[in-house]
Every structure is written in C-alpha cells, then in structure tokens.
C-alpha cells in the first residue's frame, strides 16, 4: 500500500493498513540510530519546522533528531519566541511560515483542532505533536511499535491505561490505535477522570487499579495533566498516589511478562513508583528510543507521498 495523506492529524482517521505501514517503515529506520554514522540522505533539502505552543522536551527533540538523521533541515519555534505573544493568530503564523516553503510543520498546541486548522489552510504537511486533550498520534504509534517489538504482536493483548484519562491525548490516541487491533483495553482512574460515555469507544472502565492490572500484558501509566486542571479532579495528589500510583505489588497481578509504559514526563512517587519506573518490566526508555524511528518513518512517508 502507499501513503496518500498530506497530514498526520489523528489516529482516529487512520486505517489499520496505514498504521501497519508506519510501523513497518519505522522498523527499517530504527537501525540507522544504531550506526556509527547516524545519518542518511533521504530527506536532503527538505525543511521541517517544529512549532510548539506547549512545553516539550521529548517530543520536540525526538522530531528534531528524526529529521536530522534523515538529513532534513529543522527549525524550532516555540510560543515564547514566536509572534504568538505579540497577538498574531495561529493561521497568520502558519501562512507566514509557509511563505518560507517548509515541507512539514510539526505543531503542538494546547487547543484541540489547532493542527487541523493549519492543515486546512496550508499546503505543507502538518504533523500533530499533541493538540490539547485531543490526540497525540505519534506517541500512540511509538507505543504500538514498542508493544509490537516487545510482545511480537498487538492482537490478543490486554492493555490497561491508568491515570488522568479525561485530559489525556495519549490515552485517546492509544485507544483509537489499539481498537484497530483485537485488543482488550481497560481504562482506569478516578471516576472524575474518566469521561462519560467512555464505554462507547469499546473500552472497559475500572475504578480499582488492583482489578485493572489483572492479567494485563501492557500497563500504560499517565500523569495528571496539571496544565489542563487535572488537580481539581481529585482531593489531593497524595490520595491519588495512594489509590492510583503503580507499585510493584500491582505487577504481580499482571501477566508474568507484563511491560510498563509511560509517555513521560513521569512524576515519580505519584503515578509510578521508582521501583517500577526503573524495574525490569519498564520499557519507558525503549519508548523514547523508538520514538525517533517512528517519527523518521512518518516524516519519510509524508514528504514522499504521492502528489
């Protein structure tokens, strides 16, 4: 199959075939990062702009490294250095950037749909690097890649997603991605952090972490989205850590070869204990490593699509 989409905005709109193509392409790119010379000339002459209206370390660095390993030129713009603070609208910023002929704009924004707005306006490919509580498609793809790498399959797995579900774009994208496969997804968190009608997405809702982790192949931990008001959904961080922090005892209830994931940044001692974060089941750093390969694949597919 061939890639035809101009943009990568949401997992919701991807077919299973498209997801598999990205994962397969990423496998080929993973090897490059293991070389002594970590660079191929594939995207020579392409320009990639990262436009971040929200703070980010991992995602932005990952995109930049991915682009550079493919020999593309990258320019990073963050909200505090952009015209945003001077009152320019997102659309105008986009149009101005486009005048400088970038091939791809990677955008992170606190408001859902912001990347869609750019995608409608601009000819450049737009990659959604997280839009509010909506989606974070590249994170879900790298999570899927990591699951597939560690488990050898995605079908038939039980995945528990635990934490601040209602505010989590990572949860949303992962649910949409996992439901393309034959998986059992359990969402667990305080009732205030589970959006109503959640079951309509084909997932199970569980308020008790001890039940959610039973027989899980994959446990995905989420942090409380303080920037989206997450703290007001619970009485205290302390109580949250007691009720929903992942501890070693929980892992005993899961499958023997369970893997523990976290999209980062982690809040040690809140949603995840040190012993779990650094333990043998943790694949958190593999996720980061795979992020580069997955983003290389996405950049390759978007810039080389049939036009």
């Amino acid at each position, binding site marked *: 199959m061939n890639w035809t989409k101009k943009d990568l905005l949401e997992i919701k709109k991807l077919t299973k075939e498209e997801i598999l193509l990205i994962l397969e392409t990423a496998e080929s790119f993973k090897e490059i990062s293991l070389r002594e010379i970590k660079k191929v000339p594939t995207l020579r002459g392409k320009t990639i702009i990262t436009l971040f209206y929200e703070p980010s370390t991992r995602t932005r660095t990952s995109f930049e490294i991915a682009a550079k390993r493919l020999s593309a030129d990258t320019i990073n713009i963050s909200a505090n250095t952009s015209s945003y603070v001077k009152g320019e609208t997102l*659309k105008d910023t986009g149009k101005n950037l486009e005048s400088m002929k970038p091939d791809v704009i990677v955008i992170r*924004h606190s*408001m*859902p749909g912001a990347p*869609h707005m750019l995608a409608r306006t601009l000819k450049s490919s737009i990659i959604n690097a997280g839009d*509010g509580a909506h989606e974070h498609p590249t994170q879900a793809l790298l999570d899927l890649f990591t699951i597939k790498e560690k488990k050898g399959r995605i079908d038939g797995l039980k995945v528990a997603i635990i934490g601040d579900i209602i505010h989590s774009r990572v949860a*949303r994208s992962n649910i949409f991605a996992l439901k393309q496969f034959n998986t059992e997804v359990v969402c667990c968190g305080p009732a205030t952090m589970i959006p109503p*009608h959640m079951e*309509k997405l084909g997932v199970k809702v569980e308020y008790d972490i001890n039940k959610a982790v039973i027989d899980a192949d994959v446990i995905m931990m989420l942090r409380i989205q303080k920037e989206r008001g997450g703290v007001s959904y619970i009485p205290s961080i302390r109580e949250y850590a007691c009720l929903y922090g992942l501890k070693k005892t929980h892992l005993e209830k899961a499958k023997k070869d369970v893997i523990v994931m976290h999209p980062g940044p982690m809040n040690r001692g809140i949603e995840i204990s040190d012993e779990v974060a650094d333990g043998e089941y943790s694949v958190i750093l593999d996720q980061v490593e795979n992020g580069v390969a997955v983003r290389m694949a996405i950049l390759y597919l978007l810039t080389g699509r049939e036009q």
Partner: protein
Amino acid sequence: MKILIKKGRVIDPKNNTDDILDIYINGAVIEKIGKNIKEKGDEDAIINASGHIVAPGFIDIHTHLREPGYEYKETIKTGTLAAAKGGFTSVVCMANTDPVNDNKSVTEFILKKARMEGSCRVFPCGAITKGLKGEELSEIGEMFDAGIVAISDDGKTVKHSGLLRKALEYSKIFNIPVISHCEDTDLSQGFVNEGMASLLSGLDAVPSIAEELIVQRDIMIAEYVKAYIHLTHISTAGSVEIVALTKKRYSNISCDTCPHYFTLTEEATLNFDTNTKVNPPLRSEKDVEVIKEGLKNGTIDIISTDHAPHDLTSKDVEFNLASSGISGLETALGLSLKLVHDGVLSLSELIKKFTVNPARLLKLPYGELGEGKTADLIVFNPDMEWIVDKNLFLSKGKNTPFHGWRLKGKNLLTIVDGRIVYREGTI
C-alpha cells in the same frame, strides 16, 4: 403603493386559510383577500404567485443585530436585509450589544436606526440585568415605554435565582415575557456536547444537564411567582421533556429551538469547523429526534434563528477561541422546510411556529393575513432547490456550517408594511 398578488396558495394558520387566493394590498394594509380579484389597472406591482405559497411574514424572536457596538459583525441595516431575504418581516434583537440594551436610550437608538435603515420591523429585547452582569435589574419599565417587547440576558443565564425571581415578578407589570438562556455555567465550561463529541475531540464538554437544570429552575421560579417564562434555543431531549411535563399544568410557558438543533448533530463538530460552534452546542442524534418530536407535538412553540453573525476573525481561530453562533436568517426557511418534506410538520404547522406563535408570545399585531390587517407577508416556494452560498448572504456574518448545502425551499418575496423589501428575480 398598490400590490396585487395573484393565484398563490395562501396559508394563514391564524384564520385557518389554505386556498388559492388573490391578495390586494393598498398602502400598508391588506384591502382584500379573495378569488380572482380583478386588476384595477392602477397596481404598482402585480405578482404572479402561482405555484408558490403566500404566508404571513415570519417573526424571528431571537436575532443578534450587533448594533450598536459590533458593526463589523452586523448592522441593523444588513441584519434586516438578511431577515427580509430569509422571509422575516419582524425580528427581535437581543440586548448583548455594546453598550448593552439595558436602558431606554439604547432601545431608542435601535428603534430609530431601524426606522431609518431597516428593511423589516425590529423589536428590541431589553436586558434583564444591567450590563448583563446578573447583579441588578435594568430599567425595564423605561425600556418598555421606549419599545422593548421582552427581556432577556441572552448569551448568559441570570445565575442568581433570587434576582431571576425578581425579574419574573417585575415583568408581570408590563406583561412581557422573560426569555431565558438556559445554561448552568458551573457545569458548562466547554465548547461541544458532552458525549461522543467531547469524547472524540478532547474539547471541553457541555453536558445536557447544564441546560436542563436551568430550564427546570426557571420554570419552578416562574410557576412560583406566576410569571411568564419563555425558554429560548432549547437543544436537549431533557429540556423538551421538562417543558412538555410543565405544560400539562402551567400555561404561562413557551419555548423555541433553532434550525441547527434539528438539522445537525454533535458529529458536525468533529472536524473542528468553528462554524459548528454554537451555544448551546450541537447535541446527540437522540436529542435531535426528541427536538423534532417536540416540534411535532407542540411542546416547542416557535422556531427562532438565533442569528449570530460574526466577522471572519472571530471564527477563523482555534475552536476554543472562536465565537459561538451561526448566521441563520437566510437559511432558516430552507432548513425548516425539511421538517415538512420529511413529514414531521405540515406546512401550516411550520408557518405557525414562525408567525402566530411568536406574535402571540410578544403580543404583536402581526403574523396573520386578513382584510384590514397590516400587509406583512411573504411569498415562498417550498420545493425550489438552491445551494447555500455564504458569499451571497446579505448578512455580514458569513459564518454558516451550511455553506454548499442543497436546500429545498426558498423565499421569493417579502412585503413589510405594504412595501416590497425583498424580491427574487424569478418572481
């Protein structure tokens, strides 16, 4: 001016008329309605309405004309032009202008402007509270003397129950309705319906109970003080059910909904098109079904447009930041006629919701056709297909989610006070 309208199917629900008739207008008054009225030869215009419907001019109890203060979004001139094109001969304009219509000088300004530049009748709605702040009553009596026909803090709910009670009591002095915008803002700090829309988009959610709680509260207070309450732009199944239940025991209540609430579901918001951002938000399929049912069984008395024109910049931004509202005057008839084409309402029932019922709510001497009555009427074709083109809107607000839609049914001629204020080339 003398106008003869020939061979139209005249539908006037107030007088139970539905027949092929001629209408002769002399000056501002309908002089004669009958079969085969002979031409006198001194007519300024003879309209062949054969194949079309002749109805009383529509009355929109809920528009935003934006003047004074937001003339870049709409003016009384452009808003009433759009109204006339859409088939409306009277519109009620809401008080959320700048300055707010909370005193008689603003009311007088609007009415003066409307007399000078308006293409249709304009009836201002006064603010319930000063500056729409929900803190103290505005000078309702003075505004009433100046010409308001209702009071509303539309765009906001009067949060303080005690103050709403006072407003309802006070409104009884002037026998004008309190029009309530029902939204519990403690529950509704969002942008799309709580349900699939919020679940899939990650946008902050507005649950249906945010509307229903206030619907219930306002009804309880109104009933307690025996005042008239009108609930505007209701959008949820629950609201319809509460109103239906209330109507069984209490008659001083009515409500309206808007074309978008029976045409679109929350699904329309999933592409983050800011033209689908309205307050209250587009609801679920089930809500849409119950709204239609409410229109059919009479629970919902009136269809209003909530015409909310915006400039491009207010809409061409992130969904969260975009202003709420749809520029609705020019698509209301075409969208509402779908109810007739789908068999939800008869033509007469639909016309009633745009004429008799709003006239009764506001005690206006319009909304009917009769000899000696004011000549406010329209000629429309219920089957004519056309494609919505926002660029052809007479309203300054091009914000419509219906751009490019093929609609069936179009207004062709609008007469206000015996003057032709809008006429399509085809008639």
